[in-house]
């Protein structure tokens, strides 16, 4: 999720980030890195999809951008890659996936208005973890 220039995927990509909204999993992401509803989650880490977007002279970002190729997101300038494109960022996975690139506005605590662009992904289902165990969990890219 990006708000203005403070947390934008454009900046993350521009500066060769290793993580971002739904950008990486696995080695770059401890599975219990975050928690919601006040409850820590401790499932074994999933594995990232093998493919992804290669940043020129930078890392491979283990995510694709599914969606019609005639859609270019207004603030990051990212063009979607087509409909036959993997929406999940984890591999050895079977489940229900939802993805949304929202465009909108944000109001900051400084009183200013910012552009908002998101890449929100939810992946709920069964996966084979890095340790080889088969688990069921919900992962979200925010």
């Amino acid at each position, binding site marked *: *999720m990006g708000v203005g220039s403070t947390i934008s995927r454009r900046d*993350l990509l521009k500066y060769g980030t290793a993580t971002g909204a739904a950008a990486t999993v696995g080695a770059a992401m401890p599975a219990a890195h975050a928690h919601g509803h006040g409850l820590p989650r401790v499932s074994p880490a999933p594995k990232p999809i093998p493919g992804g977007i290669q940043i020129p002279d930078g890392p491979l970002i283990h995510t694709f951008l599914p969606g019609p190729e005639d859609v270019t997101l207004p603030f990051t300038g990212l063009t979607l890659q087509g409909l036959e494109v993997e929406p999940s960022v984890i591999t050895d996975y079977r489940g229900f996936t939802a993805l949304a690139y929202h465009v909108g506005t944000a109001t900051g605590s400084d009183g200013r208005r910012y552009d908002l662009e*998101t890449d*929100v992904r939810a992946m*709920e289902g069964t996966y*084979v973890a890095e340790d080889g165990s088969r688990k069921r969990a919900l992962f979200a890219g925010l």
Partner: protein
Amino acid sequence: MVELPTDAFRVSHDGRRATLEAKDVCLVNSFQFLGPNNVAAKVSLKVGWEATGPAVRRGRGDEVDPTDPAAFLGRIAPARSTGSFSGSHVGFSFKASGDTDRGYALLGRERNGAFLT
């Protein structure tokens, strides 16, 4: 990417609607700018999806290389999504809302990797 309680994501029986709701999710945004940076952030969000078209078979499964974007199989529907968000990090907070009218959304069932065989 974060793990959330499974009840944070609700999908209708027909798979054509879904909601993701989470409060005070702790994130670490990592980025490279004049060296490595890690910024703690806390985000709350409520996102809804509603399918706008039929679910269609997508992906080519193991017919393609595992690194190929089509290395999955699924039944995916286009959708419209709306979201409301709030968050804070390093002394800055925000509230935001958006929709996918100028973006895109999808939802559906899929499998990849070891689950293709």
